[in-house]
């Protein structure tokens, strides 16, 4: 094959890759729902009723849509951070802990700056959360780059440590003096994110996540640093041989993920809870791993995947009460989506090999 022909083949492949990956994602989601329907039918409940009540609750009303959008924010922020880390070859699954650390940092700064103007307080809280999250993630970075300790295990352990550490702070030094509960004092009005829609809880964190997704998309595909990130993640040795700074790319993966997960904590504290609480996240950081994979580690794809999973989560409790289907079904569907996606990516290669041999 001549060189221009192979270049053309690459171009065609590139042009068709994106739509195909979107299509395959949709296909896997549909298949996962179908298996979920079988699970519902197997226990003698009505799958149609269950799914209708699920999406009616999450997408069928202004308030449902607002709740879904609120839930999208932490999932997408953590998911984009994890996706960028994955791109660099860093398996950072510590977003959950980074979110807690970011949340507590944001709340602390917000309480310290009470009475200052909003344009100062909110950015300071966001910056503190991003820095704290990145610093927490950097612990795993040091452990990997200096001690060669696998980040998969260290980040999971750091999640537990972060959550218990925050628990200590909320039972001790940061506890609201007037309350027996493990939480900080309520944030003043200037330390809260503005509301976007009258009558709902929708807050400005949604705008933050849209900006982050676009910036991340441009960074990953249009910037030199983004190219370096992908090159190192694709083949670290080859990248090193071409003179790239592999360590810098790995550090970028750790720090961006920590910063974005920290921002997710900030958004939950300043936009939803209005204080730091012990159960800030019902596992956003873990769900976000699946969100990142479903979004094919593409920031805009991750945003779309986050919306879908947010809708699933928001509707799941209504599904449980209306159709008698345990809400854990949505966890099963989420896992199935990824397992089907992995299988789908692998199967064509498998059949091609069979055909050749």
């Amino acid at each position, binding site marked *: 094959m001549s060189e221009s022909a192979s270049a053309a083949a690459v171009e065609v492949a590139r042009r068709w890759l994106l739509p195909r990956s979107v299509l395959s994602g949709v296909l896997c989601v549909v298949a996962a729902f179908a298996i979920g329907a079988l699970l519902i039918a197997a226990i003698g409940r009505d799958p149609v009723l269950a799914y209708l009540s699920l999406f009616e609750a999450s997408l069928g009303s202004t308030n449902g849509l607002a709740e879904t959008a609120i839930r999208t924010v932490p999932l997408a922020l953590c998911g984009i951070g994890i996706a960028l880390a994955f791109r660099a070859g860093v398996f950072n699954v510590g977003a959950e802990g980074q979110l807690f650390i970011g949340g507590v940092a944001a709340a602390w700064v917000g309480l310290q700056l009470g009475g200052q103007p909003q344009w100062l307080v909110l950015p300071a809280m966001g910056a503190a959360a991003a820095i704290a999250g990145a610093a927490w993630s950097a612990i795993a970075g040091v452990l990997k780059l200096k001690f060669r300790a696998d980040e998969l295990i260290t980040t999971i*352990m750091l999640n537990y440590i972060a959550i218990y*550490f925050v628990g200590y702070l909320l039972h001790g030094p940061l506890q609201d003096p007037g309350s027996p509960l493990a939480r900080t004092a309520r944030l003043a009005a200037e330390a809260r994110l503005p509301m976007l829609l009258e009558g709902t809880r929708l807050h400005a964190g949604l705008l933050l996540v849209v900006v982050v997704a676009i910036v991340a998309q441009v960074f990953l595909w249009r910037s030199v640093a983004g190219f370096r990130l992908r090159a190192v993640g694709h083949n670290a040795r080859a990248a090193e041989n071409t003179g790239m700074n592999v360590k810098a790319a790995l550090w970028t993966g750790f720090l961006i993920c920590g910063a974005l997960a920290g921002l997710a904590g900030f958004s939950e504290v300043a936009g939803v809870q209005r204080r730091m609480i012990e159960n800030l996240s019902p596992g956003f950081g873990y769900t976000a791993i699946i969100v990142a*994979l479903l979004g094919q580690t593409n920031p805009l794809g991750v945003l779309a995947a986050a919306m879908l999973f947010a809708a699933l989560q928001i509707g799941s409790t209504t599904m449980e009460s209306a159709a008698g289907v345990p809400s854990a079904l949505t966890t099963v569907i989420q896992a199935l989506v990824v397992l089907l996606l992995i299988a789908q990516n*692998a199967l064509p290669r498998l059949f091609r090999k069979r055909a050749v041999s």
Partner: protein
Amino acid sequence: MEFLTDPVLAGFIAASVRLSIPILLAALGGMFAEKSGVLNIGLEGMMLIGCFTGFITVHWSGNLWLGAGVAVLIGALAGLGLAFYAVTLRSNQVVVGIAFNLLMLGVSAYFFRLAFGSGTASPRITPFAPIDFGPLGEIPILGPLLFQHDPLTYLSLALVVSGWLVMQRSTIGLAIKAVGEHPEAAETLGLDPVAIRYAAVAVSGALAGLGGAFLSISATGVFLDNMTAGRGYIALAILILGRRHPFGVMVAALLFGAAEALQLRAQLLPVGIPLQFLIMLPYVLTIVVLAVSATRSGAPAALGQPYEKGER
């Protein structure tokens, strides 16, 4: 020498052993998978599904051993599922493991709600009771260490010894190690890397399932959502600390059991350390262990790499 017979110390030693068993079994299972070249990140989920199926079987049948058997079987099936992805589809083993863990979390919570509703009264079973060794249990140190436990604990220790026999003293172990170090070379010797890896991951699932079941049908008598709480991941760290050797793994697991027992006991005593820092102990220990003994040294050469017939 009064401390030797101190009941607090005796209780601490017995608890250390008891708390080490789940992670010991999971790590022992992880050893089989890793020696064959497959990274089993799914240990956590396999423990959880064993924990759940063991509990529910005992709840329905009243037979503790049947519960343990079902947990082993379901764990092995989960292992085969993971092997399909890791070996046949040659997927990224870390990604598949994480997705598997999520699936098991969802499946166990789904069927638990279904079986027992979401009421506040959590169902209980009568767990395994310790075997009465009479005066042997009264021996200082050795008594609580060896003679105050239930049958499942002794089964686990027997599994460690058999794991050692299989791994170090049998041709099966040799075949597993050959496949983990150099599958191409192993195949030229007439071994089937695919079949061996499937079997090794199934065994690892069976052991992790039993380890999970230990939590529900031996240690507590209840099942809770996400009851394993990261023990499958701790087992992966123990594997590294124990150098992927059955006895090394046993000592490392005991260290973690001791950390957990210490944490539980210190909660009751006025030691002046905040509770949360005590609960962190096993997790911090895992990180310290990884940082000190990490590097992939001693790992099988082909660990985590999918194998394909006829590919060089």
